[in-house]
Every structure is written in C-alpha cells, then in structure tokens.
C-alpha cells in the first residue's frame, strides 16, 4: 500500500480527507467541478464504491496519518445503489463517533453527510463549512504515538500444527 501520510508542518492549513461514495456524493463533487464551482481546496477526496465500504479503521487511519478532519459522503437513506450500504455506514459512524469522543477527538472533526448526485451545491457548502470548522479547531495531531507495528502478510503466518 502506498504511504499516504501527510508531512507535518508547524503552520499548515487544515487537511480533510473525504470518503465519497461512487454513485451519489462523488458524482455530485464531479458535477461541482464541471459546473466550475469553487470550494475549499484542502479536502482530498477518496472515492469508494459505497459508503458501506468505509471501515471505521479508514477514518482512524486518516486521522492518525495527519488528517485534521474526515468527511464521509453517501447516498440519501433509501437511495443506496446497493440497497442498504448507507445504513451500515450510519450504524458504524454513530458507534465510531462515540469511540472518538472518548479518545478526545472533537465532534466536528468527523462528519457524515448524505449528498445526492445532483446536489453539487451541497458538496460545496459542506466542504466549505467543514474546512472552516476544522480551521477553528486547529490541527488534530495524533502523530505523536509510536508507529503502528508492521503487519505484513509474512508476519502473521501461523504456526503449523497449532490446532484451534
């Protein structure tokens, strides 16, 4: 996996990682682009096929690797291309938020929004709002912890002969 960690600078603009679902929110952000809307440039969009694909670990890893905020965009309830992926996203997101609160991460740093393919203006508004909110909060800075252990495939080969 390529290293996507962001270099740390003392003075820096907030960095937001956005996970957008392919069918609705990513299409809307594409529409915002082709419509030549301008919005906060500090959001880096990662396209996923469905908001139901967004594992809580993606959000945690983004924060750990230098993101100051994480935005998740999916289809409106009832509109999921895969029927119920966005509901799974909602359930995981609500649980993850409880954990993040315990870990001292402010509520505004991680946000879930339902944005349909036609709602380009909503992408612009949400991205701008989030950028302002994160700028007010300042850097997240989780980078001080020791590096997560290397979990290479080889490192997890199991001992032959140990029965379960």
């Amino acid at each position, binding site marked *: 996996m390529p290293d996507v960690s962001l270099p740390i600078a003392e003075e820096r603009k907030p960095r937001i990682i956005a996970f957008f679902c392919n069918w609705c929110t990513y299409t809307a952000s594409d529409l915002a682009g082709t419509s030549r809307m301008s919005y906060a440039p500090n959001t880096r969009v990662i396209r996923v096929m469905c908001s139901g694909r967004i*594992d*809580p*670990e993606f959000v*945690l*890893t983004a*924060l*750990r690797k230098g993101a100051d905020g994480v935005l998740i965009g999916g289809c409106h*309830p009832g509109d999921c291309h895969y029927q119920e992926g966005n*509901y*799974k996203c*909602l*359930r*995981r997101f*609500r*649980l*993850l938020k*409880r*954990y993040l609160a*315990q*870990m*001292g*991460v402010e509520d505004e740093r991680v946000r879930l929004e339902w944005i349909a393919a036609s709602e380009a203006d909503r992408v612009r508004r949400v991205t701008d709002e989030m950028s302002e909110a994160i700028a007010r909060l300042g850097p*997240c*800075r*989780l980078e*001080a*912890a*020791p590096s*997560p*252990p*290397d*979990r*290479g*495939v*080889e*490192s*997890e*080969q*199991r*001992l*032959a*002969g*140990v*029965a*379960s």
Partner: protein
Amino acid sequence: MSKPKAGFYWCASCGGCEESVVDLAEDILGVVDAVDFVFFPVAMDFKRADVEALGDGEIAVCFINGALRTSEHREMAELLRRKSTYLVAYGSCSYQGGIPALGNLFTRDEILRFVYHDSPSTDNPEDDEPTPHFEAHEGDLELPQFDEDVKALDQVVDVDYYIPGCAPPPSLLKAAVEAVLSGELPPKGSVLAPDKALCEGCPRIDTKPNEPLITEFKRPWEVQIDHEKCLLAQGLLCLGPATRGGCGHVCINGNMPCTGCMGPVSRAGDHGAAAMSAIASLVDADTEEEVDRILDGIPDPAGTFYRYGMSHSVMYAKRGITCAGG
C-alpha cells in the same frame, strides 16, 4: 550437554500469564525436563544480576508478559532482549498493551491525582506522591519512573514471536516451547496461534445472524442466556467475528461472550475498528435516533472494543497524550 535456557518475566502484569504456565498441568514436567529456567521471578529466586551475568543470546527463549509503563519495564525488556535468542511477547498485555493500556485514556497526571489524592479510598494526609528519588534515613531510595503512556513489548524492543490471550491457552505455550526446541519456527513476527476468527468453529455458528437483528444490547447478567444460540443473536456483545480463535472457545462454552483477548486476525489491522464494524452492522435500525438508542447499550466503546489492544490500535492513546522515550 546442558539444556537450553529459558526465562519468564513480567512487566505490568496481573500474574495470570504465570498461572497459564501452571495450567500446563502434567505437561509442565516435560517443559522442565527440556529447559533450564534461569529467570522466573514469580517462581524462582534469580535476580537481575544473574541475568546480567549471562552472555548475550544465552537464553534460548524468553517469554515476557505484561505491558510496559515504567523505566524498569523498559530496562528489563532491553536486558532480556540482549540476553535472549528468541523473545516472545506472551499474553495480551505484552502483545498489544492489554488491560493496562486502557491507561492510555488518561494522562499520567490524571492517574496520579486520582490514585494518590481523589480516589474515595485514598488516605494520604501528607499528599505524598511517588518520586523516582527519595532521601530516607537509611539512604537514598530509587523508584522506577512512571511513564506517560503504556506500550506493548514490540514498541520498546524487537520481538520475535507473539502468543496472544488473557491468559494464553496452555496449548499455545506448549506448542511454542516445542517449536523452539525443535527449531521448526515460523517466520519472525508470527503470532503463534491459528489465524481464524473465533466464529469459525464456534459451536453456535449455525444461529449467527447474517442480517441486522440487534434491537437492544444486553449485559450477561440481564438475561437468561441460551446455551446453544449465538450470543450476538441474543443481543450479547460478543467479539467473536473480529477476534482470533485458538482459545478453545472457553468463554463461549462457559456461556459468556468473547471479550476479544486473542486480538485481531491478521486481516483486521485495528481489532477494535474491525469489531465495531462487525457489531454496528448488526444493529437493527435505519434512523440516527434509533441507532443511537440501541448504541446506548454500549456505554464504554473504548473499553469494550479495545479492552486488550489499545497500544496496538491506530489511535494508541487519547488525543494529547504524548509518548515517552523507549
């Protein structure tokens, strides 16, 4: 020819890992026949100086249990690393931080303040706090430094193998000792346990839910638990879907849900995140309000999903807690 030397040391530990050695039962005789224990503070009277007198790498295999929180833990880990050919992180705490690593949810100052001043059971009229140096009538006394954070063994020294569990099943210890003695070792860094989720091979797997059906999370004491039905299907928070098996399903067979002591399977990087993902997707609700009502049944997500693995988790510690040297 002299027998291979072995060591067994504890850092921030409860002694349960030592208990698992006793749980080898008669198999312990085979182990004692095969190796010479040169360091085993809980059972035998060897001192640090005895370890220092050994040559580098002279201990064939050393098992260290417990998380690392003090300068003493770090010094002993470094000493035993130097003296051992194979160093094994033994048990959940040494492997991933374990229960002591939940201390990473609080700053060092918060912990000291509560324990020495604010706790209802504290009686400390002089407001004493531990210090690394103390001048007593008998001479200067030294205490280890209490670190800012709790680490797993591999966050301090190089570790060859891991044996998970709280405490590890004796079968895994026995297999590991046999592997070291025979020289048939897996690649360095391996977790010496089967790489399968607990649900695989669970006697209750046939009733495991595939669809969201949890409308309420229940604590074990709140319900009459069915002995045969999947615990998740009964609303009990079982971490089986995200947790490594190899423990022999002892909790499940005791009619209690899995709390995750074996850590993640290799496919799951962050054990707690994998567990949160699996458990949340079973919540039977489609609106934020209803999801929240059901999730109110999990009052402590950090303590539930990261009970044994905070040091190895992506977050590592509550935001703002700095990491001590080592």
